[in-house]
């Protein structure tokens, strides 16, 4: 299981990005996760709170958007969304689809933040 080290890395990046936004509280961290990232959603969720503990984004939620595998079908000449990573073939014509266009990502996409009230 390597999700803890990945969660730590994710928290580091989120803290870096949050710092650039000024005086904000991070309420949520949004990521996109593809099946070919080699990262398990549940394990990442499980590790995230511990990884964020004591950091600038402690208490933030992790929102994971799971994205499908998308491949190019050479026979249909079209992009196709596949059912999963186990069988790389076109769902329409059955042709093998070695060219993967998406599905390998683990990407921080957005931060949900609240601006702190200006100090008097």
């Amino acid at each position, binding site marked *: 299981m390597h999700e803890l080290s990945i969660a730590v890395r*994710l928290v580091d990046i989120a803290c870096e990005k949050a710092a650039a936004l000024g005086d904000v509280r991070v309420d949520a961290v949004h990521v996109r996760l593809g099946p*070919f*990232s*080699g990262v398990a959603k549940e394990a990442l969720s499980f590790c995230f709170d511990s990884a964020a503990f004591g950091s600038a984004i402690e208490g933030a939620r992790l929102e994971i958007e799971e994205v499908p595998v998308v491949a190019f079908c050479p026979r249909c000449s079209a992009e196709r969304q596949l059912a999963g*990573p186990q069988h*790389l073939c076109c769902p329409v014509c059955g042709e*093998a689809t*070695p060219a993967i266009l998406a599905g390998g990502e683990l*990407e921080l996409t957005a*931060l949900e933040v609240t601006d702190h009230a200006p100090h008097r």
Partner: protein
Amino acid sequence: MPRIVEVREGVFKKNDQLARHLRARFDRLGVFVASLVSSPGAGKTALLQRTLQELKATRRLAALVGDLATDNDARRLAETGVPVRQITTGTVCHLDAEMIERALADWDLESLDLLFIENVGNLVCPSSYDLGERLRVVLLSVTEGEDKPLKYPTIFNTADLAVITKIDLADAVGFDRDEAYRNIRHVRPGLDILEVSVRTGLGMDPWLARLEELSARRAAAVQPG
């Protein structure tokens, strides 16, 4: 008021960038880098040991070997007389590009033709980390079951070559070759598959020839003219 700020940054970006740098450096210095991945016990060290033995007379070789603990594998490989360096990862279940860079820091890469990297035995975590290698070889031993590729599609999908090991045991364990090939190619259409037995030597020649061919092709691609 909460607001959403778009950021977009890949969590593996740092590793991927470093791996790209490493790959460019390997190309520039003319060293062909091949990594081996598999579950624990599939025979990475055995295959590598024999490969070093067979190639050391004609090619300048070195190996990096990753393990959670012990330097047993590095010592086995060092018996061949080839320079070997152990990367002990502690509790980390995979190698990453930074570990490779650190392990190579004081090595004269220019004096090498081929560098082998033996990853930690693990079919999950290594799939997320590019090491800057030119060839990633995934090993599947006949004793593991033909459905391994379906259980671990990501690692098979990132591989450039599959090697079925311990092929001398295929009959004894009722290995279904067609099923294994089918499963490998379900998760990685068109992937090249070789079969070897390190113990009997069966399949070693095609494996060595493939390494020679791929490293020669790479050398031709990076050397202008």
